[in-house]
């Protein structure tokens, strides 16, 4: 393979937008000119990326930011030549280190992929081949592109694993992907991508599927390795916080068009296109809420006109004098771990351990924490979707853990749930109207005519048209589906709604709208929300009170302003510090290059959870004392 010297076309590529003066002034590693991508489905051609041009220089990070359907991932796959050949068409020029890529054959492209440019993907859980050891998967690349012998490739792989800070690299060479956590798998992916020292690294949402403390680690790792190798990085993301943290320059995409490009600072502070401003106003910033004790709606900016609809002020809906609508005391939920020939109990997952809290009418209490902290299990235990081992749950006059049969069903009218994935939680073969009416009719609350009226009313309440009830879920967008799921949860006029990561899967602008909807409903119906989320910034926005969970326990609970303004527990502090702040001015701030994993709540048989002591910081703000 010959490698042409990087040359020409530098000036030409940025005709539409002002070129950004680069202090290094090196020739770009990647320059994309007038790139358009279209797909052919059922004989029709749909263009998903239109006339996009940009370039990335050595050592520089360009972020492409946009929501789903913006064409950002398709752009990156087009550069890699990974789009399905028969149904897609790529027009324009892609120059990598002076070599034009769109005219190359499959064979020539495969020699460049993984050698001159490499890519890491969003889903570390599924992006590694489950049947091969991670050592083999990394060394494969070394053998292919650098022609190393097996032994040399093994030594180099171990060095790479150490470079991405995987502890005990040499012994982990022969392990399989399932033996690694999500964060560690992403490190493996990075090691694989860096194997042949590529000039360009494309990172497609590399931290989106990871927990927030792990996300910080991975972002820092990418930044550091980039500095060491002077790589160009193309960073694809929807997260403005991540953009602010990693990108030198930012390009905003909207429905296939490049709407704005410039230095990250300019895009954040002087965004010219309405969509850029809409996107930024929808991003919650940690610390925005200051000392107010009640939630705050998002201001909505119209993506086309740029018109700003200011956030309606939130009315305080909580009556603290009344007894709580939901009261949980010393809740314990454990799952058996079995093993051996006869499947005996060998241990237990202590998913929820001694959890206590109150929730008042009209209040939002958020449970925050990372994967496996027991926040979802807590929500399910309260509804008895899983059976708790011990504790006491009082809900709207019911002693929940004592109920059975008909009483259990009646209790569920008081508490409903909204799930994370609006695509999976609606039955695709039922009309939306039937889905929303189902709780109402199955609890025999009225006639079919009454159910229809109820559905029409509910759809209107969640911002949809009543005549949509005869349509099927696939005709709706993700945000609309989540509204339908909310309407369904409201069908029984519940007192409490458990919202389990209900806005996490939504695009930023949709997320803001759905959060506003939840606050509207709280105001008009006095609903209490148990808001389960990993997203600290959203939690800060929507909650009255917050409980931080770690390994099945609440380590800190208190009013929102107190907890965010004066965090006491080390884990709370760590969680808050890990959230990327959408402010490019804070870019230089580095975290320590920690490789600590989330700990597992699996305990041996006969494990006795330690007695906990709690300290009151201020009224209602309680923190667990002997940390760990």
């Amino acid at each position, binding site marked *: 393979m010959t490698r042409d010297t990087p040359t020409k076309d530098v000036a030409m590529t940025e005709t539409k937008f002002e070129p950004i003066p680069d202090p290094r002034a090196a020739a770009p590693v990647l320059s994309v000119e007038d790139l358009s991508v279209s797909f052919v489905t059922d004989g029709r051609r749909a263009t998903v990326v239109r006339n996009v041009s940009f370039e990335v220089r050595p050592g520089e990070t360009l972020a492409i930011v946009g929501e789903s359907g913006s064409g950002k991932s398709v752009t990156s796959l087009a550069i890699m030549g990974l789009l399905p050949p028969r149904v897609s068409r790529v027009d324009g020029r892609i120059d990598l280190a002076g070599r034009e890529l769109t005219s190359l054959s499959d064979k020539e492209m495969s020699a460049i992929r993984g050698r001159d440019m490499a890519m890491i993907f969003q889903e570390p859980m599924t*992006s590694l081949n489950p049947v091969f050891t991670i050592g083999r998967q990394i060394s494969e690349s070394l053998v292919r592109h650098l022609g190393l012998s097996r032994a040399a490739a093994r030594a180099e792989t171990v060095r790479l694993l150490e470079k991405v800070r995987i502890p005990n690299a040499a012994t982990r060479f022969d392990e399989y992907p399932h033996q690694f956590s999500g964060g560690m798998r992403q490190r493996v992916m990075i090691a694989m991508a860096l194997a042949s020292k590529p000039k360009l690294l494309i990172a497609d949402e590399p931290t989106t599927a990871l927990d927030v403390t792990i996300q910080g680690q991975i972002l820092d790792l990418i930044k550091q390795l980039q500095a060491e190798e002077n790589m160009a990085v193309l960073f694809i993301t929807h997260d403005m916080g991540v953009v602010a943290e990693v990108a030198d320059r930012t390009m905003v995409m909207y429905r296939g068009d490049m709407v704005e490009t410039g230095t990250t600072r300019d895009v954040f502070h002087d965004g010219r296109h309405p969509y850029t401003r809409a996107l930024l106003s929808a991003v919650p910033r940690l610390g925005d809420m200051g000392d107010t004790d009640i939630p705050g709606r998002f201001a909505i900016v119209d993506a086309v006109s740029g018109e700003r609809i200011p956030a309606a002020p939130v009315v305080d809906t909580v009556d603290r004098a009344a007894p709580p609508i939901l009261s949980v005391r010393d809740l314990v939920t454990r799952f058996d771990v079995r093993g051996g020939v006869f499947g005996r109990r060998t241990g237990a997952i202590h998913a929820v351990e001694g959890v206590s809290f109150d929730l008042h009418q009209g209040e939002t209490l958020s449970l925050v924490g990372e994967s496996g902290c027991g926040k979802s299990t807590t929500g399910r235990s309260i509804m008895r979707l899983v059976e708790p081992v011990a504790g006491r749950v009082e809900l709207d006059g019911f002693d929940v853990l004592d109920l059975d049969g008909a009483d259990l069903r009646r209790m569920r009218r008081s508490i409903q749930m909204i799930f994370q994935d609006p695509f999976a939680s609606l039955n695709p073969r039922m009309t939306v109207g039937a889905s929303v009416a189902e709780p109402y009719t199955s609890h025999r609350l009225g006639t079919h005519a009454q159910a229809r009226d109820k559905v029409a009313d509910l759809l209107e309440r969640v911002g949809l048209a009543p005549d949509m009830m005869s349509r099927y879920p696939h005709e709706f967008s993700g945000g609309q589906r989540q509204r339908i799921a909310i309407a369904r949860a409201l069908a029984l006029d519940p007192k409490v709604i458990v919202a389990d990561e209900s806005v996490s899967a939504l695009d930023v602008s949709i997320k803001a709208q759905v959060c506003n909807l939840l606050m509207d409903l709280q105001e008009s119906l006095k609903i209490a929300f148990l808001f389960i989320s990993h997203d600290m910034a959203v939690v800060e926005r929507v909650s009255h009170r917050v409980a931080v969970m770690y390994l099945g326990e609440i380590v800190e609970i208190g009013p929102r302003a107190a907890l965010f303004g004066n965090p006491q527990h080390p884990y709370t502090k760590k969680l808050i510090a890990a959230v990327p702040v959408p402010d490019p001015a804070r870019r230089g701030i580095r975290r320590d290059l920690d490789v600590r994993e989330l700990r597992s709540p699996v305990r041996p048989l006969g494990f006795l959870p330690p007695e906990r002591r709690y300290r009151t910081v201020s009224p209602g703000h309680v923190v667990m004392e002997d940390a760990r």
Partner: protein
Amino acid sequence: MYVFIARRLLLAIPTLLIISLFVFSLQKLLPGDPVLVMAGEERDPALLELLRAKYHLNDPIPVQYVAWIGNALRGDLGISLRTNQPVVDLIAEKLPVTLQLALMSMTFALVIGIPLGVLAAVKKNTFIDYLTSVLALSGLSVPNFWLGIMLILLVSVKLGWLPASGYQPFFVDPLLSLKTMLMPSFVLGNALAATMMRHTRSAMIGVLSSDYVRTARAKGLSERAVILSHGFRNAVLPIVTLSALLFGELLAGAVLTEQIFTIPGFGKLIVDAVFTRDYAVVQGVVLCTAIGFISMNLLADVLYVVLNPRMRASL
């Protein structure tokens, strides 16, 4: 891993017991008295009684069952009522014949079905894909007996290339043995090949659209390495399980195929035994088949674990 195998072996015991009970009681529920068949034209009640006593047919049924199981465990499946030979000897004589037929058919199914399936998946929605689909569909829809007879007419009678029927033990004359079995195993194996091909195709299509195959491509591996090493290695897992299940179909199909090609195997043995109410033989053959089927599935499960590191860890 060993724990897993041990657990599977333990589970096979109740399965076998249930099958044995089923086989045994089915026999007792069938109409017709075997003693009458044995006695032939003779209708002397004293003789019939004597025969009944000889074969313990007057004992209570549970006693007969326990005696039968006990003997079976010692390798004694009784005496054929018809030929007076021990059933075990009959089975030992016929088993290799059917085993050879089954193995050759399976090999045929794997060698044809899997590569075609992979090819169809890689060339999804192209002419090659449609062609293999048509082939598979015709393989599934043509009845075995018709295909068998047509092949005999064409290949043996008209062209005289292969023998039309019979059996030659492999260790006596390997070449002739393979030649005689070639047509039967094609007839028996073609439907399996078609099933195998369809399943390989869908497994492969699923795997080829997975994230890790995209990673393999992003790594710059050659398309051949992506498909064969990263892709097929994962698609093979469901095929292993399928093969073991198809083995049961194979045994059922063998009965018919052996009739068409007059091969003296298990199929012929069991058909003859059923018609003459030769209880002991039917029981022995069915039990033996069940053991074969269970062992194949056990083998498949073990193989699955060997091929799938995720399973190894969770055991």
